[in-house]
């Protein structure tokens, strides 16, 4: 059987023997450890971001409709609702009306966004039970605490549509029962309340008519948007959960990309140490390289030998770093070791999510840096003059 190329035959032995030489073994260890540290830091940082983003995304998406359609003013909501319900993939659709209002209880008034719904409590009000909802207002737990009201209490809702009286326009006020509460969470930007359209009749001055559409999953909602646009009149706007949170998702994506680039610099610096390591390794073996050339090894093959040596040292470091980073992330997540102040954040610990595709990408980038630096570091061997090497 034909042996493998010379570089593959010699590199493992050279790596093994490098340990005997204090200077080269120290530099090799520094380079490998630096790359390992960089890769571990990268894996940990990306896992922390992924964990945080996953939690944040779940939290945000809990409060976002899968699909929302804003219809042009004056359109026939009932007819369009029936048309939408016939579209393949639509599981549920209902008309919504949005308006501003004030909630008054025990002498305290709070401005709220009122979402009036036709059939059932929209999914953007998580944690509330719908059978309780039909009877009245559903408000966030924190708002309920602030107003000191509980399900069954009555509160007054002041609408934006005034009544004209001989004394001038007067606000319309309706006393409504609190039917339930929902988990308002710490990512809510303002106070929201939901109530059935029937109870809101005549009280609010709603904006353009809105339809809420639900389908099987968040992923199914994306292609459904296209199908919905085909049946809707011009001037309608179909927004998916992605469109509704586009700035947030963009920011999360950007954050990860910047983190990746910044932490990658550690790997770059460590890979540059590899160049110095290879230079020292070549200098210490220059005469042996001359002897190999005399036996028929082409200088380019000797260059490949040192490139492979660099890749073994750097790749070993990268693999070790990826293992350390991934195991550390899994342990930190499993035992919730990084605690966060729950008064400040919506979580009381920092979650880590190891995304293996990302770990693969980190490894790939580290090995690519290593290979590039090794190629650069090994160029002296590729350009060596065998006779000069033997004279040293």
């Amino acid at each position: 059987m034909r042996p493998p190329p010379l570089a593959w035959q010699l590199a493992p032995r050279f790596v093994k023997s490098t340990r005997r030489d204090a200077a080269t073994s120290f530099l090799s260890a520094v380079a490998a450890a630096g790359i390992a540290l960089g890769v571990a830091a990268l894996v940990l940082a990306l896992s922390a971001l992924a964990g945080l983003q996953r939690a944040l995304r779940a939290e945000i998406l809990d409060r976002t409709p899968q699909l929302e359609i804003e219809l042009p003013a004056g359109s026939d909501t009932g007819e369009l609702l029936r048309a939408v319900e016939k579209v393949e993939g639509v599981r549920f659709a209902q008309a919504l009306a949005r308006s501003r209002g004030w909630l008054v209880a025990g002498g305290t008034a709070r401005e709220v966004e009122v979402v009036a719904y036709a059939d059932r409590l929209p999914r953007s009000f998580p944690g509330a039970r719908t059978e309780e909802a039909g009877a009245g207002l559903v408000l966030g737990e924190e708002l309920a605490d602030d107003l000191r009201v509980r399900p069954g209490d009555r509160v007054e809702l002041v609408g934006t549509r005034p009544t004209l009286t001989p004394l001038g326009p007067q606000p319309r006020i309706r006393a409504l029962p609190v039917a339930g509460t929902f988990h308002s969470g710490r990512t809510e930007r303002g106070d929201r309340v939901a109530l059935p359209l029937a109870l809101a009749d005549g009280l609010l001055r709603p904006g353009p008519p809105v339809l809420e559409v639900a389908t099987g999953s968040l992923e199914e909602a994306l292609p459904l948007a296209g199908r919905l646009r085909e049946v809707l009149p011009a001037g309608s706007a179909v927004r998916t959960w992605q469109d509704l949170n586009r700035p947030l998702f963009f920011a999360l994506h950007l954050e990860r990309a910047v983190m990746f680039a910044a932490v990658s610099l550690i790997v770059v610096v460590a890979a540059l140490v590899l160049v110095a390591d290879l230079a020292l390794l070549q200098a210490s073996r220059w005469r042996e390289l001359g002897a190999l050339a005399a036996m028929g090894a082409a200088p380019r093959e000797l260059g490949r030998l040192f490139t492979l040596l660099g890749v073994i040292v750097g790749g070993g470091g990268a693999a070790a770093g990826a293992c350390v980073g991934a195991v550390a992330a899994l342990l930190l997540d499993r035992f919730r070791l990084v605690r966060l102040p729950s008064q400040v954040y919506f979580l009381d610990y920092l979650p880590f999510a190891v995304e293996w595709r990302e770990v693969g990408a980190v490894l790939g980038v580290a090995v690519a840096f290593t290979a590039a630096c090794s190629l650069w570091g090994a160029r002296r061997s590729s350009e060596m003059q065998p006779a000069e090497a033997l004279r040293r």
Partner: protein
Amino acid sequence: MSVEVRARALTKSYRDGERSVEVLRGVGLDVAPGELVAIEGPSGSGKSTLLHVVGGLDRPDAGELAVGGRSLVGLDPAELARFRSRTVGFVFQFYQLLADFTAAENVLMPARIARLPLGPWRRRAAELLAAVGLADRAAHFPGQLSGGEQQRVALCRALLLEPPLLLADEPTGNLDPASGEQVFALLLDLVRAQGTTCLLVTHNPEMARRCARVLALQNGVLNELSR
């Protein structure tokens, strides 16, 4: 197996800072297939340079050089490497064994470089080591061998692939007289047994006399001393 070596008007110079040092000044050389030729000359006269040029480790500045009828002028580095692998065996004054490989592995190295199936060459390596009296030292690393033993390993390595041309650069120059004599006798035996063409650089007039021809390199020119 053997080849003829033919050189005409070979010149080679080096730059030493601003100065150009002319080492070979129109060297002519004719070595018949299977001939054993000694080259003498004072230190720094260019004997090693001549061997390196003939062996394809270095390039002449000008002149013609053919080994086995094939011109070496104009070959690219990969072709020169192939030429060295197939045609030339080198023995150096300081052995140049690879420290991380055992004696047997060092002897096998030319077969590894040429990427030949190792099985049969392992057997030949063992035979060669036995022929130079090192069968029991095959598993030792160079650092565990004496100078004479290391040079015998280097001789086996140079002859492993039965190259038609052996270039020996002061092979006994770093050895005590007894070890030097032993290595030289083995070299003569093996070269004669294989019919290899051999160019031998030596400072030892006694050894030079035992070769078929003696040439002297002086002031960059090669002269015939005896035939």
